[in-house]
């Protein structure tokens, strides 16, 4: 008997940050998941089984993530873990899941550990921060004819991935990383970091930052008359940047995989989707809502393909021959195989123009 799958229900577990530093993202991702789940269930579920989401809060704390995972896996007996937010949190929870043969499906983190080292229970969907920067940076360097590339990054597992991506990219160009500087999560003052980069004469700065730090860094730079090209990862690709940072943010580049669903988006399906989301949850959707939505969408496809007899093994079998076509948000085609567990490592470049993200390139191939 497969745990988490009954005659008329499939139990999906997710762990989000609902009270910690990323509570906003956690909530949006969960709403996105719920939206797709409701759609699937309205259409009769999957092979007669309705999807049910059990979510836990880990407050972005690895210890709580373990406890939450134990509860979901051993107490609620979920079939699969989907869309768990945070790198360290996933790393802490995965052993608990794998002990019980529970798949870690499309965690919301772009760390390489989500599919490496190989484990048959790991599936990951989006290009890692590492790959994003590694592939996008050379293009931008050439375009802007940059001479001195620097990076400022958050002193944690997320930031270091961006920094490594930048180093790898520069290696291919035979360029040194002129200056690198860090800050601690939650920092509010970036004056000395900016001064350092300014003093080093950087003309392209890779941002291993998230939201407030991005705005803080760029704001401080603009004030002190330091105007290099800024490039961020998909962590920067959120509407909050231009909403909070205002005009100063114009010109910032970021890599991204799916598009931000603006309510007044030109594309009709996205507009329709965004309005539906807004009606349901009474808030504007973000790119994290899209992640959540896409995760359940992929999960449903695989479960459907796995057939009537849904087990971990049949799900894996279905996944490993899976090809997910690009969707309306502009995601890249994702393919999986018994050895390839990352859907796609490609991303696009976008830029803030007139206070809005605009996609400025196609998928950047190596």
């Amino acid at each position, binding site marked *: 008997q497969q745990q988490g799958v009954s005659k008329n229900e499939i139990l999906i577990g997710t762990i989000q940050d*609902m*009270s910690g*530093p990323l*509570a*906003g993202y*956690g*909530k949006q991702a969960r709403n996105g998941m719920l939206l797709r789940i409701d759609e699937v269930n309205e259409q009769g579920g999957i092979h007669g089984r309705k999807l049910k989401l059990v979510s836990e809060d880990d407050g972005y704390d690895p210890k709580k993530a373990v406890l939450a995972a134990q509860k979901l896996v051993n107490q609620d007996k979920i079939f699969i873990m989907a869309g768990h937010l945070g790198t360290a949190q996933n790393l802490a929870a995965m052993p608990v899941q794998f002990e019980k043969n529970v798949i870690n499906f499309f965690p919301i983190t772009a760390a390489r550990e989500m599919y490496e080292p190989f484990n048959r229970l790991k599936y990951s969907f989006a290009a890692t921060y590492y790959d994003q920067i590694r592939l996008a940076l050379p293009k931008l360097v050439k375009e802007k004819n940059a001479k001195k590339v620097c990076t400022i990054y958050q*002193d944690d597992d997320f930031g270091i991935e961006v920094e490594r991506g930048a180093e790898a990219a520069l290696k291919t160009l035979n360029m040194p990383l002129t200056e*690198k*500087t*860090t*800050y*601690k999560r*939650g*920092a*509010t*003052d970036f*004056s*000395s*970091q900016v*001064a*350092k980069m300014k*003093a080093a004469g950087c003309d392209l700065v890779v941002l291993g930052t998230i*939201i*407030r730090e991005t*705005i*803080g860094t760029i*704001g401080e730079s603009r*004030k*002190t*008359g330091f105007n290099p090209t800024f490039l961020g990862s998909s962590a920067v690709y959120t509407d*909050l940047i231009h*909403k*909070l940072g*205002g005009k*100063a943010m114009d010109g910032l580049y970021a890599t991204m995989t799916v598009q931000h669903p603006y309510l007044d988006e030109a594309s009709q399906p996205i507009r329709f989707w965004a309005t539906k989301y807004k009606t349901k949850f*009474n*808030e504007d959707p973000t790119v994290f809502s899209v992640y959540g939505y896409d995760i359940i969408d992929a999960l449903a496809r695989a479960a459907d393909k796995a057939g009537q007899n849904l087990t971990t093994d049949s799900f894996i079998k279905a996944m490993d021959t899976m090809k997910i076509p690009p969707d309306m948000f502009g995601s890249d085609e994702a393919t999986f195989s018994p050895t390839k567990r990352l859907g796609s490592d490609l991303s696009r470049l976008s830029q803030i123009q007139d206070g809005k993200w605009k996609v400025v390139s196609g998928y950047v191939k190596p």
Partner: protein
Amino acid sequence: MQVLQLVISGISQGCIYGLIALGFVLIYKATETVSFAQGELMMLGAFAGLAGMTLLGFPYWLAVISAIVAMAAFGVVLERVVIRPILGQPQFSIVMLTIGIGYVARGLITMIPNIGTETRVLPVPYKDQIWNVGTLVLNVEQMVVIGATGVLCVLLFAMFRYSKLGIAMQASSQNQLAAYYMGIPVKRINGLVWGLAAAVAAIAGLLLAPITFVHANMGFIGLKAFPAAVVGGFGSLPGAIVGGLIVGIVESLSGFYLPDGFKDTAAYIVVLVMLVIKPNGLFGEKLRKKV
């Protein structure tokens, strides 16, 4: 010039620490407890200002004043409801209580749909303005912080030194029993202290908001203000400012001249060094029980 610019950034950041540290010192001097909720009160103050401006559509000054007044009232109510019942218990209980208050405040704000989990901007009239003095760039947002910190410090200092009320606050923190014997309305004074502390926190929140944005976790900056208060000597108001400045400047310079990692820990290294050379901080009283 580089150094000067760094020092100036350090000073403005230091004033932020100092401003929050003022709140700690105020509560400490008047009740001898350390409030871990000060950062959260600051966050609430910023949200109150935001609510005034966006929800109620107040003009800037009205929103600021009403946020401060609202927070002062909130402080008084808070004291009445949760602090007063355990007045007189060991200080440590009250410290734990403030940690609890911090959790609840942060959680409640997070629970507000659509607002709690988001980051907002507080639209202030002086947003993004800059003064160029020679080659130096002075940020108006930060200059306002510096000015307000100075004024608040002087006011509070005068209150504790010269007003009967201020002395009574200190008296009731040093020996509550004796304060009762003297007819000092300890409870009412305590309420006043918390009201005042909440108002100071609100001011800090409103001044900080343009720099750090308004969000549920903005109170964590308080963790840097603790070292500032200790460096200056926990019971001393001018000490809070000086401590804040030292921490700010050291941070700024070490961020530029020292390897990565030092900027983030500068505050803590400074405080440890200070405790080794001067265990009671720069301006702290040297205390010893006479037996």
